[in-house]
């Protein structure tokens, strides 16, 4: 290194001293080796992480696809069937899962979105906002079985009501609410303040600014958060086991004490011996659940893409 301080290149040791000619040779052998090892490690780690995922997906698809591809699977229930008898479908469980998810979303989405609007638009930086955020963080760590026990204690022990699909939905609200609130909060925070100011400067009141400028800007992200939250709670099993009995027939009433659902259908068929028709139905139910969750994710993407304006 030279003592010259006239230029960056002369003193930083990266391009040699000012007197030696510039060198553009490839890196030395040891550096090439280290680079190769690090790349190989990253690739192997990625593959190792993917193996269980692909394995699960492959098992479920290969064992469940045959039944899922039949029309009776989507149109018939399991009423009167034993594991030894062929036929039937998952209609009762699909109806139950969608109904429980829908009731849950109807409660959790308005609460979560309005809560996030309060936190970001009206109480940003205040003590109450921090307190609510902290509570939501704790809530998002609650195991589903604890949420189920809480609802059991409240609805069944204290209020004296029976077990029902609505009770399941309430327990799922406790799980979905933090997801919706948190993701909406993050999306609203991403909306630049300059847009709010632009709206205020047009003489638009704050509530209209939130409703017509901020919300549409964040809409894609918010709907993605809602769909992901919904996808999460639709696969929950503990509240279903505790708060409602599994029904093999079709039931549309959310207040009845029995209701079919995909997770409990899988649970009911978990110890059927391989080779029996009920064994295949259990795998098909698992595949159906995956398909529904995947469709929700696709819908979320579709919404955020469809609401985006063309630029050119």
């Amino acid at each position, binding site marked *: 290194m030279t003592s010259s301080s006239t230029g960056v290149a002369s003193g930083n040791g990266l391009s040699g001293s000012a007197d030696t000619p510039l060198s553009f040779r490839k890196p030395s052998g040891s550096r090439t080796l280290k680079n190769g090892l690090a790349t190989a490690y990253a690739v192997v780690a990625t593959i190792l992480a993917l193996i269980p995922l692909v394995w699960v997906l492959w098992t479920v698809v290969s064992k469940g696809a045959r039944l899922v591809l039949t029309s009776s699977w989507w149109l018939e229930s399991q009423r009167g069937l034993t594991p030894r008898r062929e036929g039937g479908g998952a209609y009762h469980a699909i109806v139950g899962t969608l109904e429980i998810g829908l009731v849950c979303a109807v409660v959790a989405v308005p609460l979560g979105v309005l809560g996030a609007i309060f936190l970001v638009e009206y109480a940003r930086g205040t003590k109450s906002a921090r307190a609510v955020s902290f509570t939501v963080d704790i809530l998002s760590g609650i195991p589903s079985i604890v949420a189920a026990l809480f609802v059991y204690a409240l609805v069944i022990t204290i209020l004296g009501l029976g077990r029902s699909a609505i009770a399941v939905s309430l327990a799922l609200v406790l799980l979905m609410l933090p997801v919706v609130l948190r993701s909406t909060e993050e999306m609203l925070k991403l909306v630049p303040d300059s*847009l709010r*100011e*632009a*709206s205020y*400067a*047009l*003489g638009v009141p704050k509530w209209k600014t939130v409703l017509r*400028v901020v919300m549409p800007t964040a809409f894609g992200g918010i709907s993605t958060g809602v769909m992901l939250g919904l996808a999460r709670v639709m696969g929950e099993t503990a509240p279903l086991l505790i708060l409602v009995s599994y029904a093999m027939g079709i039931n549309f009433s959310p207040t009845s004490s029995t209701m079919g659902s995909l997770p409990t259908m899988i649970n009911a068929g978990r110890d059927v011996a391989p080779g029996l028709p009920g064994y295949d139905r259990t795998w098909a139910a698992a595949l159906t659940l995956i398909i529904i969750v995947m469709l929700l994710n696709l819908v979320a993407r579709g919404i955020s893409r469809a609401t985006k*304006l*063309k630029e050119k």
Partner: protein
Amino acid sequence: MAKRIDARNVDIYYGAFHAVQDVSLTVEPRTVTAFIGPSGCGKSTFLRTLNRMHEVIPGAYVKGSVTLDGTDLYAAGVDPVAVRRVVGMVFQRPNPFPSMSIFDNVASGLRLNGVKNKGVLSEAVERSLMAANLWNEVKDRLGRAGMGLSGGQQQRLCIARAIAVEPQVLLMDEPCSALDPISTLAIEDLINELKESYTVVIVTHNMQQAARVSDRTAFFNLAAQGKPGRLIEAGPTDLIFSNPTEKATEDYITGRFG
């Protein structure tokens, strides 16, 4: 359509911080008034008090009075939302609404204030885009996103959006600082046309720009970092630039500091 602004003994605070001290200034109707001065001297802050945008920031407040043709904007019972309908604003960075098309951006001020008549809206959009010298460039793609335009076009879109609600006064906070020279020229030409119908106040860091576009100039300065900014002097632009009364103004204009 243009009104006179009278600011009397205005002090501006961000919480405990005293940002601007004792500014008294008159802005004449149908003129362009430029606010110049070094960074942190409070010119943008003062501009934002003229349409009560300053108080959007938590903890910010104003003392003194700002009147618009005799009506005190800071009197008790005045709705800041109503003030902003009359005193429009264009910001430093172009900020079109990303969820809206070009048409919807320009129509947004009217629509969000309850105008629903399609004929009225499209007439206002065409008139505003023409006034902002943007109509010919976008008339065939009004349904496309405003974010797809170039920076200079976006800023003219924002000007069109601001004038679509027909304000009495247009405040511009360094409207060209994010733009290239050609777009800047387009905006400056536009300002010259706008002053025929509006009172325009523009904050700029660019002395040549102040000299080119403004009729009157106000020079702001601050004694030291952390001290409040003050109005040093205000007057006709040619006088401020050729023969300023204050030494600090001359030093700033000739580039000796700032």
